[in-house]
């Protein structure tokens, strides 16, 4: 990674493209879902220079997500250790983060890790009841499951129970 970066004046990055910066950030994993990095999660929104300062924009998955603080610190650490000292991590809220940004590949990683991935497109009618179709069990692939609670161990997940393999499991909510 060090090869990608040329330094000047001790703290200034040059000829660094956005893709290379994003590539560095793929080292950082979501602390609550350690199989997905923050770029594929869609948490990193942009990276650009403003008056020689590197601005990295991130967006929270949920407003109160406690992982955001850790992620901000880790971004600074990764950039520091790659020679970029002048970096600011900014939170942006629009457009609001949505599971619609997750690719099929990302969803498969979730499933293999044991978390049922979000299915379909996020509901735009906010008063409508959530699609109560049962979520497929990530362990035995059975469709015979039931919702235990809309709220799980982290803000982004709901709790379910598989009636086939008698296992509780988590589902990444579609938002």
């Amino acid at each position, binding site marked *: 990674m060090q090869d990608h970066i040329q330094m000047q004046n001790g703290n200034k990055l040059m000829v660094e493209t956005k893709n290379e910066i994003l590539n560095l950030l793929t080292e950082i994993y979501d602390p609550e879902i350690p199989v997905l990095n923050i770029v594929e999660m869609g948490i990193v929104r942009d990276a650009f220079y403003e008056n020689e300062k590197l601005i990295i924009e991130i967006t929270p998955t949920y407003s*109160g997500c406690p992982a955001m603080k850790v992620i901000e610190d880790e971004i600074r650490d990764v950039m520091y250790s790659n020679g970029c000292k002048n970096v600011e991590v900014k939170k942006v809220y629009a*457009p609001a983060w949505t599971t619609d940004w997750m690719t099929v590949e990302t969803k498969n990683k979730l499933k293999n890790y044991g978390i049922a991935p979000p299915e379909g497109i996020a509901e735009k009618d906010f008063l409508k009841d959530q699609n109560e179709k049962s979520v497929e069990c990530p362990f035995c692939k059975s469709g015979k499951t039931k919702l235990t609670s809309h709220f799980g161990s982290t803000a982004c997940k709901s709790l379910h129970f598989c009636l086939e393999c008698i296992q509780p499991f988590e589902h990444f909510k579609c938002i």
Partner: protein
Amino acid sequence: MSYKLNNDVRSALFEYLLRLGDDKLILGHRLSEWCGHAPILEEDIALTNIALDCVGQASAFLTLAAELENKGRSEDDLAYLRNEIQFKNLLLLEQLNKDFAYTIARQFFYSSFGIYFFQDLAKCKFEPLAGISSKTIKETSYHLRHCKEWMLRLGDGTEESHNKAQEAVNDLWRFTEELFFKNEIDELLIQENILIDSNPLKQKWRDYVEEILTQATLQIPQNENMQIGGRHGIHTEHLGHLLAEMQILARSYPNAKW
């Protein structure tokens, strides 16, 4: 961050953001009091998840307020170093948790308002505020779904759950008028095309609440004795106690870090 706004608009917007941030902060803190006390584990997790969303939203609104004010105060200064009279939250949200039905009814009145209110606010012309609002709607839809289901189950449940739900609805009804409070701050922001005038909001809310309460076999209260004051910093006796507990650490150990 600098925004191109004249001083009157800037201070009106600051005040407006305090209302939004204080609503979320106070409700979030109240809900967090359930941690470890809810009737079942899933409910403990649900209420504290909602609390976490609220505190996160409060942080976003207060950070923006602090940036606009531009006097070197941070979101933490606004949350922990203001006194009761400087808090602009709705009276509804500072009310005690009392019992589970009471907590659910409070959340139901607020989230059903929020789902319409934040959809309007997401269209406002001040982009940072529109952004936070669009985030807030998604989370509010989960909160509303949860407390709506509980309203139905409690109201249309056992005699005891029905009575407790009805009592909570009756008691909290007098704080619902304040949800639609408007004064010269709102008028200025509407006039400046920053906010949109959301007159049908009250009717939409009322229709929705009536529909759900009726389904839950609960009566709509006829109480006309509505209480307001929060937006002016005039609170019920409960806010001071809440602030004492919420602020003691930050005030006892200024600038503490961990």
